[in-house]
């Protein structure tokens, strides 16, 4: 039996430091300018699938409602098409905010473990960090295994079509010298909006 929950938010539910961290990330500095006009949600091709519209994500983020923001499916649905960002009348980097939130969710380990996008992102990340390049088939297979193995069966025809047109490759691509990239990326800063020590 589902119990009735209080929907109220107290000041103690807010994490203002979280809002500051997001503000400090590239493209996210203008979130306080938002007038909640909702253009972002109106123009977003996938806002119809989101639990919280992009407009609400901005409002919740700048107020520090970290849990609400990171637990909504919104950030994983975002296709990163930048429609919201270029149409925003206040020139807020909404897509950049979505990216920032995705990294925060993965850092915090609260991303949905079997939802396609976060699984794909992490597989992609690991593969590119290792080989320097992305191998489409390998990536698809690995992602499906971790998110939705059953779906792979549905893709068999697609695989066949690609095979027939010579566009299917199971080879793991890599840079001629991936080692230089390993070192290079190890030396990049973590840009996560936290103040450097």
């Amino acid at each position, binding site marked *: 039996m589902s119990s009735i929950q209080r929907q109220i938010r107290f000041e103690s539910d807010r994490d203002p430091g979280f809002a500051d961290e997001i503000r400090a990330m590239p493209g996210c500095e203008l979130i306080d300018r938002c*007038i909640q*006009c909702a*253009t972002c949600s109106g*123009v*977003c091709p996938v806002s119809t699938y989101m639990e919280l519209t992009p407009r609400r994500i901005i409002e919740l983020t700048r107020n520090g409602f970290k849990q609400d923001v990171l637990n909504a499916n919104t950030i994983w649905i975002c296709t990163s098409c930048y429609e919201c960002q270029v149409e925003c009348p206040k020139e807020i980097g909404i897509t950049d905010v979505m990216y920032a939130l995705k990294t925060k969710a993965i850092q915090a380990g609260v991303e949905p473990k079997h939802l396609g996008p976060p699984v794909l992102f992490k597989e992609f990340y690991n593969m590119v960090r290792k080989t320097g390049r992305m191998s489409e088939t390998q990536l698809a297979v690995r992602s499906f295994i971790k998110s939705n193995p059953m779906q792979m069966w549905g893709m068999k025809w697609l695989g066949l079509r690609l095979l027939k047109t010579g566009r299917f490759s199971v080879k793991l691509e890599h840079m001629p010298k991936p080692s230089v990239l390993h070192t290079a990326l190890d030396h990049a800063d973590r840009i996560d909006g936290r103040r450097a020590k």
Partner: protein
Amino acid sequence: MDDKTIGNGSEEVRIGFFICHCGSNIAGTIDVEAVADYVRTLPNVVVSSDYKYTCSVAGQDMIVEDILKYKLNRVVVAACSPLLHEKTFRAATQRGGINPFFFHMVNIREHGSWVHQDRALATQKAMDMARGAIARVKFHKALEKRREPVRQSVLVVGGGIAGIHAALTMANAGKKVYLVEREPTIGGHMAMFDKTFPTLDCAACILTPKMSEVGSHPNIVLWSYSEVTEIKGYVGNYDVTVKRKPRYIKEDLCVGCLDCIDHCVFKTGNTDDEFNQNLSKRKPVYIPFAQAVPRLVAIDPAACTHLNGGKCEQSCATACDRQAIDFEQKETFEHIGVGAVIVATGFKPFDAHRKPLYGYGRFPDVYTALEVERLVCSSGPTGGDVVLKDGSKPKSVGIIHCVGSRDHQTNRWCSRVCCMYSLKLAHLLKEHTDAEIYNFYIDIRTPGKGYEEFYERLQEEGNHFIRGRVGDITDVPIIPEEEGRMIVRVEDSLAGFVRRIPVDMVVLATGLEPREDASEIRRRFNISCSSEGFFLERHPKLAPVSTTTDGVFLAGCCQGPKDIPDTVAQAGAAAAESLVLLDVGYVEMEPMTAFVTEKYCSGCKTCLPLCPFSAISRDEEKGVAVINPVLCKGCGTCVAACPSGAITQNLFEDRQIFAEIEELLVHA
């Protein structure tokens, strides 16, 4: 030079220093007592004190009393900007019995306490600035303001409701008014409106009587189809050149019978009718609208066959029994002298093409608000029938607010009138079509008398109000009911989800922006623009219709978006300010002009080409430069350039500035 006796004559320099707390505005950041204590230690300073509000009557009285009590002959006040209160304190100095130019002001509020946070550093800066002023004021001289008479006439530029109201006010006060309008008729944007909010009285009914009054007023010279091309001179004495474009009609002969229009070889219109927002056609010989003032036709040289060198039987000319049509007419120039100028050049509606998102120009039934004004107007292109491009009546209309406004990509400002006119149009459209009306808004702003009540009335009339800026207008349906219509995609932000609403007509509530030629006009009249391009008032609160050029005033939307009541109020204010200037009858010229000390002038001619006001000439007999104080505006350019140091600018003398620089840089 002996520090004690520099300046005027040989008397000892006795300086009084007064520092203002400005409540906590200054004292909150600057330790004013410490500054006063410090200044007291400087040479020639006889008294140094601080006061809560120096600009108050009591504060000014303190200065007057101290001048008498301490036999002061110099006064320095450290307070706000001299642009605000220099006049006040000069007057107080004068009341104390010494020449007002023995005063100098230090700006420690706008340039000090309001822009700095560190108390110690801000106090240090205030001390430095005070020391600079003390050093310079020693070298001040007694100066007299020259008086020049003011011409008893005024130029009003722009014949919209602002210009009309200002012109009538001045004319009724007995002043001669020249009203210059670029278009063939006065009336401006207001003449295009159908009704006015929130009372819904007919725009034409309230405007046209005023227009005809302008046309017949004995004190008003109305030059329509004309432009101001040059303005020279100074407050009270402006020389203006007005270009009168040829309308190919002898104005003194035309009686406005309009026979020529009937007889034009074009039986129907051949060119877009700009008055109807290009929703209809007009002929090359035309009158913009029935109640145009002056009631004179004009021939559009771009559309007229004859004026384009084509073969035409010129039936318009033969139809005119007064032979008023004159194809040979050329532009002419009028030269007038006026005492004051009121700039009322209006605004430009935002060009909806700049927001491609809303499909203006792509979907036929996306309209701008001004187009809809014409559509709902019974004298408009459809006679007041609101029909779509295919002739049908809309069943559902979306009105999108804030088009081009509140938008960093276009105009950052709120255009102030769009909410209210959108409500008005919603009401009129509902009345004309009985369609479902959807208002898509970000915020509804109704700060005016009766405005909120009007909003409520609209709500009660069954209009939909959806809080969300439209994200997309598309013709791609996803369910059958959307087929063949425009679909508005918007987040209903109060409901929290995205909605798709099919509509037949979209109205874009376009904002107001400066006219394209605003910066050209601004230069012509030597006034400033704010960063968005509207003309800048001298002070947003205290001098809202004045400009940085004395004798040039602003009225209406050229200064910023405003509705009709505010425009009329501002036009009245501009007229009143002009009247003050004219009725006083003289202007006092600031004495900060430059002069040549003949014995030092080698006559090298360096200064001659530098003066933009042609105030410098050469006395060939003496071989020296001479500055005409009436023409000199006191910029000081020649002073800087004079290689002999033979030119001096009052109040900005080399020795004053050097003293100021050098003392500003000594660390207290």
